[in-house]
């Protein structure tokens, strides 16, 4: 019964989405207030309906209703409750429902918080949001219906892929979707602006927080995914340049670019058409990501579905939205006259350079991801594009970003001189050089990676520090410290975001340059030495988990006779799927991770034991956390609360659209 209600709610939501798309769009065109006003309640109702539907599906998972095909395929009565809940989106159909739920959530958020938006803009934004909903609801209902029943319900389900039964991965998809779909807001605003034929500072002030939120969610989602890969896959890799990872990385890069170009639109009324284009591309790449993940066309370790109908349908959605938006862009972009003027050396130019580097970096990721497909289709070559390509082709651009970032961030608007900015940044530059030289002198011996990466990371962190310190003006130290605390949160958000990137730089280069690995057979009771650590395999026992059998080792690690840690790496076998997983045991400190993995028993006795020492590993995710925190701090700036009021005033005074 509840299932049928959920199904019915989903069908109703499709109807509401159609109304939300058509009625406000006509209303905005004709200037009919009543028709425009329909947008907000429609968005709210749509959200309620999809939430009901989602709740019904979750109920089926929680109660292990094995008359539902999706539950049979992806759940099991013995599965822990947490994974029964997260199992809802651990599969193609359920995750699609989560996707449309989030589309509707953003729509409802505009309806709720967007009271101050000019009515015409609001109607058009919600109409576009309705159109996106319509596309994905129909995709869900016609090709991936989660509510299909089984004719003969089995006694138990087939369980969830054990790799997905992990807290890190359980919450990774919702954050990613909040990010992907969050970019639909900028897209809808961009289309609304194109239809309206104008874009101004108020528009950018609305788009920025949504883009920032999307970027922040993507940061969290990508960070969680890479953290999961680090501890779950058994050798501590954290990024694979796998097509599905790239699918989340490209929108992240575009969101970062859009975030910065929207600042120029808001403050200087320039870069308007470019910002619109970025908004279109950002969501376009979210859709490409969905297509890559779900069509199976670029097969990857995490791809969900490999159904050609679904792939074609998604390709249709992608072509419709991106093609339609770009056509509209081509027709209307000329209407976006730039007002602001600025000199060659200025904050504006710095942001243009930032945008070029980020966009080209995203493009490199894109071409590397689709190249195997292109090569096969057009050149009849079966080839691979793996990590070495991306490391060679992508890195120069991101290094470029890191070099210019602290300088660009401190350049004044409109007309600037480089010399004073560089003079202020001198301490940061000296620190970065000192770090680079020190690391080089210590001699990793392997490559330039460590000194260059560490120096760039320090440059970013110190540059962010100099930037925020310089905002406190001149005068006595005490006064400056006081002012530091009173700075707008947006300033803090900026500093945190930039510093976080630097911290991640340090983590990645430290880990990649200095990792130590030891693989050996150890007998129980045996002690061996890895880079100054004495590692003892004390015990190996078999334990029974809730839905798995575990081989758990007890490994004691000491340094110069003093105990450092006792770790319990595990190997689990999930009988339902007959599938093994590794649970690495990690002892984490600021400077290094000790990463232990227990392998198979060996023929001559003993166990395969892998010991990794991973310097600076924690910094990678600390950087992600700081970046995401920067986003949150910036979003809480009171300017966004004030902005709502300002927009209302402007709307009351002269908000007549140029038609």
């Amino acid at each position: 019964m509840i299932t049928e209600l959920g199904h019915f709610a989903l069908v109703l939501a499709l109807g509401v989405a159609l109304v939300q798309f058509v009625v406000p769009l006509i209303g905005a065109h004709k200037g009919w207030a009543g028709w425009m006003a329909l947008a907000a309640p429609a968005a709210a109702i749509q959200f309620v309906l999809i939430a009901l539907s989602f709740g019904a599906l979750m109920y089926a998972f929680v109660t292990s209703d094995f008359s539902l095909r999706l539950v049979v395929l992806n759940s099991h009565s013995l599965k822990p409750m947490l994974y029964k809940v997260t199992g809802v989106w651990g599969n193609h159909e359920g995750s699609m429902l989560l996707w449309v739920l989030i589309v509707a959530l953003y729509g409802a958020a505009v309806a709720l918080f967007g009271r101050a938006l000019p009515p015409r803009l609001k109607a058009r934004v919600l109409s576009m949001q309705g159109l996106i909903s319509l596309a994905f609801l129909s995709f869900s209902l016609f090709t991936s219906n989660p509510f299909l029943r089984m004719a003969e319900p089995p006694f138990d389900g087939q369980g969830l892929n054990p790799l997905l039964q992990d807290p890190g991965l359980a919450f990774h998809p919702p954050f990613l979707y909040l990010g992907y779909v969050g970019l639909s807001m900028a897209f809808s605003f961009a289309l609304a602006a194109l239809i309206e034929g104008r874009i101004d500072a108020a528009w950018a002030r609305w788009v920025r927080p949504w883009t920032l939120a999307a970027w922040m969610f993507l940061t969290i989602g990508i960070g969680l995914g890479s953290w999961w890969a680090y501890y779950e896959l058994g050798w501590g890799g954290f990024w694979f340049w796998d097509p599905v990872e790239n699918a989340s990385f490209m929108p992240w890069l575009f969101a970062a670019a859009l975030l910065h170009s929207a600042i120029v639109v808001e403050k200087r009324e320039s870069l308007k058409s470019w910002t619109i284009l970025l908004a279109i591309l950002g969501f376009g790449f979210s859709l490409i990501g969905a297509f890559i993940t779900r069509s199976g066309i670029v097969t990857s370790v995490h791809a969900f579905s490999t159904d050609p109908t679904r792939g074609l349908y998604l390709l249709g959605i992608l072509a419709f939205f991106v093609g339609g938006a770009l056509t509209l862009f081509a027709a209307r972009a000329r209407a976006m006259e730039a007002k602001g003027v600025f000199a060659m050396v200025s904050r504006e130019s710095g942001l243009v350079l930032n945008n070029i580097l980020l966009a080209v970096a995203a493009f490199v990721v894109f071409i590397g991801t689709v190249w195997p497909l292109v090569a096969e289709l057009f050149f009849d070559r079966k080839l691979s594009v793996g990590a070495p390509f991306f490391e060679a082709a992508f890195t120069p651009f991101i290094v470029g970003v890191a070099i210019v970032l602290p300088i660009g961030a401190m350049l004044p608007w409109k007309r600037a001189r480089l010399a004073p900015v560089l003079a202020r940044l001198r301490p940061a530059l000296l620190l970065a050089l000192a770090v680079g030289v020190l690391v080089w002198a210590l001699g990793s011996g392997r490559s330039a990676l460590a000194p260059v990466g560490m120096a760039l990371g320090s440059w970013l962190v110190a540059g962010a520090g100099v930037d925020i310190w310089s905002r406190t003006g001149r005068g006595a130290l005490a006064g400056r410290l006081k002012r530091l605390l009173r700075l707008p949160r947006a300033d803090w958000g900026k500093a945190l975001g930039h510093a976080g990137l630097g911290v991640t730089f340090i983590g990645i280069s430290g880990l990649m340059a200095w990792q130590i690995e030891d693989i050996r057979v150890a007998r129980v009771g045996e002690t061996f030495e890895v880079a100054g650590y004495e590692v003892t395999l004390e015990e190996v026992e078999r334990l029974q988990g809730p839905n798995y059998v575990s081989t758990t080792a007890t490994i004691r690690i000491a340094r110069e006779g003093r105990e450092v840690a006792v770790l319990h790496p595990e190997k689990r076998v999930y009988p339902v799927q007959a599938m093994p997983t590794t649970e690495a045991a990690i002892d984490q400190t600021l400077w290094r991770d000790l990463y232990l993995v227990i392998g198979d028993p060996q023929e001559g006795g003993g166990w395969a034991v892998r010991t990794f020492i991973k310097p600076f590993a924690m910094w990678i995710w600390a950087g992600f956390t700081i970046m995401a925190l920067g986003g949150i701090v910036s979003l809480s700036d009171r300017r966004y609360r004030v902005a709502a009021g300002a927009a209302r005033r402007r709307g009351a005074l002269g908000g007549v659209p140029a038609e």
Partner: protein
Amino acid sequence: MMKRFLLILAMLAAPVSPLGAVNPDEVLDDPVLEARAREVSQGLRCVVCRGENIDESNADMARDMRLLVRERLLEGDTNQQVMDYIVERYGEYVLMKPTTEGANKLLWAAGPALFLLALVMAGIYLKGRARAAAAQGEKLSEEEEARLRELLDG
């Protein structure tokens, strides 16, 4: 349907099957040779898995390839000779780093070419803005004039 789903699940599972890759019994005694073997392995793709190199992969196929790499190294091949040998047997597909031959030139050149193009276009745009700034000179815009009057009169 069910069968196909299970197959997909198995495919999903196989490449990331996380039991670690290089086993202790494969490791060569000579640490220099072993280091070279690791380096070569990291550039070769496991043909039955997707997107994993043979050094990371747990598949039997990857193990066979790892052993083959070590065998060739023991026989005195250079790293490049080992690579060539494997590519000859398994095809270009196993190379994690695509070659720069033929159409692949497009792949490698795409990023730098786009970057240069973007720089030129941005340069033209920025020049236009700068010229507009110069034309406007130090004069204030209407809004700024109005605001100035407001301040002076107020």
